[in-house]
């Protein structure tokens, strides 16, 4: 729920938007096709970048033609009858009904058509389900509201990162002033895969059901908490490909896009090397003792990536999201309360648990909140305190 004043300002802004939109609604669309994502006023499925998506495109077109022929046939007869067999034209009603021959015929014909269509689709069903012999296996974990990727097998094994919508896009959405061809599709860390390799995506979720979808690959798979499911694709060209979460997962459902960057084999190998180096360099030593400024700087990044979506960049939250700016718990000299909330969540899951972040990240973000905005407490929470609190 919005506060009264912000609701009013939203309504005023909305009315203004509506006014400008009504004057020239279609002039607004200063937007181009997004290669690998949606086209402007796209009318059909995308042929995509995998054999499967191309097959689905062709299959869909074929079925559309079958439907169209039947449509024209049935309604040709109906509208002919409507035009000709009218009382106003003096047409006298015939008196025929019940014909076993005709009725068997029009039961059998659709039966054969649907069985034929089913047979056409069967190969694709089997192919979609065949996730064996993958070159690379990546786990995609749905979080409210971001994706986590873990490279489980194959080249790149061990790489893991979170992929979050660019906060600038979320802000544009709130402001009601979106722009850009990749609006709501731009993430901080895209999933990176090599071209022409069979990539198996194992999906699961941390909280509620999400769905991992990339139309250009012909792939959509629910990510279900407590269970693992899988799907696969083999991209046939390099480039950027986009999708969005396709299962209602709460308020930020529209804000957890999927961006897959397909690289050539050489580029992919180079990317993997760099990532592995970065992991080695960035491996935080949880026993390291940090300076206040360095930890705040680190915490600001953690905050922006994880907390700002609900608590806002200004730390004021939005009812029912609690404000952090001025919060007694945040300012408390006793660090344990805030650590417990961050580790275990609160308010019945409205504030999720953040155990998946490292001790250093959590210490950094807590330190940041204790010193940001008007909370100039000067307090410093070291990663070691988190390690200890985690054990409790």
């Amino acid at each position, binding site marked *: 729920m919005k506060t009264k004043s912000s609701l009013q300002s939203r309504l005023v802004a909305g009315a203004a938007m509506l006014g400008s939109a009504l004057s020239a609604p279609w002039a607004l669309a200063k937007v181009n096709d997004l290669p690998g994502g949606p086209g402007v006023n796209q009318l059909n499925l995308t042929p995509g970048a995998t054999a499967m998506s191309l097959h689905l495109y062709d299959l869909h077109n074929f079925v559309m033609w079958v439907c169209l022929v039947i449509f024209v046939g049935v309604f040709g007869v*109906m509208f002919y009858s409507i035009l000709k067999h009218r009382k106003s034209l003096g047409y006298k009603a015939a008196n025929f009904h019940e014909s076993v021959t005709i009725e068997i015929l029009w039961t059998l014909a659709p039966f054969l058509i649907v069985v034929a269509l089913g047979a056409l689709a069967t190969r694709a069903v089997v192919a979609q389900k065949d996730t064996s012999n993958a070159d690379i296996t990546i786990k995609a974990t749905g979080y409210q509201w971001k994706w986590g990727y873990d490279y489980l097998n194959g080249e790149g094994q061990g790489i893991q990162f979170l992929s979050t919508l660019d906060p600038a896009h979320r802000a544009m959405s709130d402001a009601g002033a979106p722009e850009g061809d990749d609006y709501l599709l731009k993430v901080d860390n895209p999933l990176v895969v090599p071209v022409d390799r069979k990539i198996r995506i194992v999906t699961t979720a941390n909280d509620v059901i999400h769905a991992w979808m990339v139309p250009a690959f012909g792939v959509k798979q629910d990510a279900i908490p407590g269970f693992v499911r899988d799907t696969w694709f083999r991209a046939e060209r390099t480039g950027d490909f986009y999708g969005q979460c396709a299962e209602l997962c709460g308020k930020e459902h529209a804000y957890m896009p999927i961006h897959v960057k397909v690289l050539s084999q050489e580029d992919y190998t180079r990317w993997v090397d760099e990532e592995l180096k970065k992991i080695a360099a960035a491996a935080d030593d949880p026993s390291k003792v940090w300076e206040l400024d360095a930890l705040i700087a680190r915490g600001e990044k953690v905050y922006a990536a994880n907390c700002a979506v609900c608590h806002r960049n200004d730390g004021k939250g939005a009812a029912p999201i609690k404000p952090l700016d001025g919060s007694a718990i945040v300012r408390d000299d006793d660090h344990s309360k805030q650590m417990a909330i961050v580790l275990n969540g609160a308010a019945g899951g409205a504030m999720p648990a953040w155990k998946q972040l490292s001790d250093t990240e959590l210490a950094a973000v807590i330190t940041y909140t204790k010193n940001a905005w008007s909370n100039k407490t000067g307090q410093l929470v070291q990663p070691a305190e988190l390690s200890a609190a985690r054990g409790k």
Partner: protein
Amino acid sequence: MSAVLDHPGGHAHEHDHAQPHGWRRWLFATNHKDIGTLYLLFSFTMLMVGGLLALGIRAELFQPGLQFVNPELFNQFTTMHGLIMVFGAIMPAFVGFANWMIPLQIGASDMAFARMNNLSFWLLIPSAIMFVGSFFVPGGATAAGWTLYAPLTLQMGPAMDMTIFAMHLFGASSIMGAINIIVTVLNMRAPGMTLMKMPMFSWTWLITAYLLIAVIPVLAGAITMTLTDRHFGTSFFNPAGGGDPVMYQHIFWFFGHPEVYIMILPAFGMISQIVPAFSRKKLFGYTSMVYATASIAILSMIVWAHHMFTTGMPVTGQLFFMYATMLIAVPTGVKVFNWVATMWRGSMTFETPMLWAVGFIFVFVIGGFTGVIPAMAPIDIQLQDTYYIVAHFHYVLVAGSLFAMFAAVYYWGPKWTGVMYSEARGKFHFWGSIITFNITFFPMHFLGLAGMPRRYADYPMQFADFNAIVSVGALGFGLMQVYFFFFVVLPMMRGQGEPAPQRPWEGAEGLEWEVPSPAPWHTFENPPKLDASATRVVG
């Protein structure tokens, strides 16, 4: 004042036994016609509430970016729009038609259980209040989608419990209504009205009533398990305790798929009576229509998991549910062919009921084709949870169920109220609705094919133009229904218009046209003696 609301005692031939007056007539109503009227007025009110929510959704989606509501409230709108339309508008409306028409069609004096009939209507009021009232509790209304998928339901506030309780009441009401209809149809037909001479509307409702009894308890189970997961520490669907969220979907759709046929079979019955009446020709294949209805009902119970192709079923599961789902095209095709064959070489006129019936066939068939396409599991992988699905189910639920009910209001309205509606206004309502309906829902196919997910408060810029068109269409469609109420329904209820003859339609057959217009408060108090076809009263 009005024809429908006139005090019933006004009819001279009635042997009044202390009939209730004023509000008591409605609160203690046991007369099937009064209860039918209550159901219809209630469901129209809920149609307006659900329509307002839809317009809230469309206002937000008129442009990319958030202009009017935050995403949380947006999800509440989509959820409650779905629940209110399904449980508050469409289902009770059909029960209203059943109450009014089944006793008249089969020559019965009333419904079998008059007081249970009263209870099943009045249970709707508290549940509607809870649905609407849930917007005002802390956290707002339920925002988990009308399908109420676990474990998102576990994160909802107290509104979720209100929704569950409200749905239990709706369910109890539906089951009582279904029992009443089955007992009435099986026991109270006039002598000579054999089952295979019964009008199609009564037939389709008989089959629908069995479906209701079969699946409403399944829904009750699913939402009760959700309730105990939320409050009593069980883990039926909560993965944190070892529960299975996919099991919820199986149980829900075991209810949910027959539910869509519950909402369309009575519509088939209406169309199967209106098309012959205005073609002045018998229904082409009455027997095969009955069998087709029964086959659809049976098939509807073995296709539920086509809503779940993306949950990751084994390949055999995908194949079984794909083939079973596609088979539904067969009996549905039989119905459409039957209607066309009935029109063929008829002597047609196009009064408003017939316009709606032809409009129904046209748009419903589009909805049927867009059902075959996602029935093919591999294609559904691209379309699941996109606007294509939204387009599809509005083509069958709005253009299907709702349009058939409009046809039926114009068809039977003169019998209910004793006055004819204005033909010009009826035609304006029809053309205005069918045009704005298509402006609203046809572009959604394109959005879905392009990959726009449903239940999104905001969307990439590429989808902007079609969304703007859709929103404009939705506003027009909503206004057409307001017009319908003020310029068609209200005048008829107030008795304004040409007096309706007993049989206002030249080609209409059936016992409802054997009683005067408006239908007296009591009809067929003594079983009528019927002719061989059981469509006319003799002596």
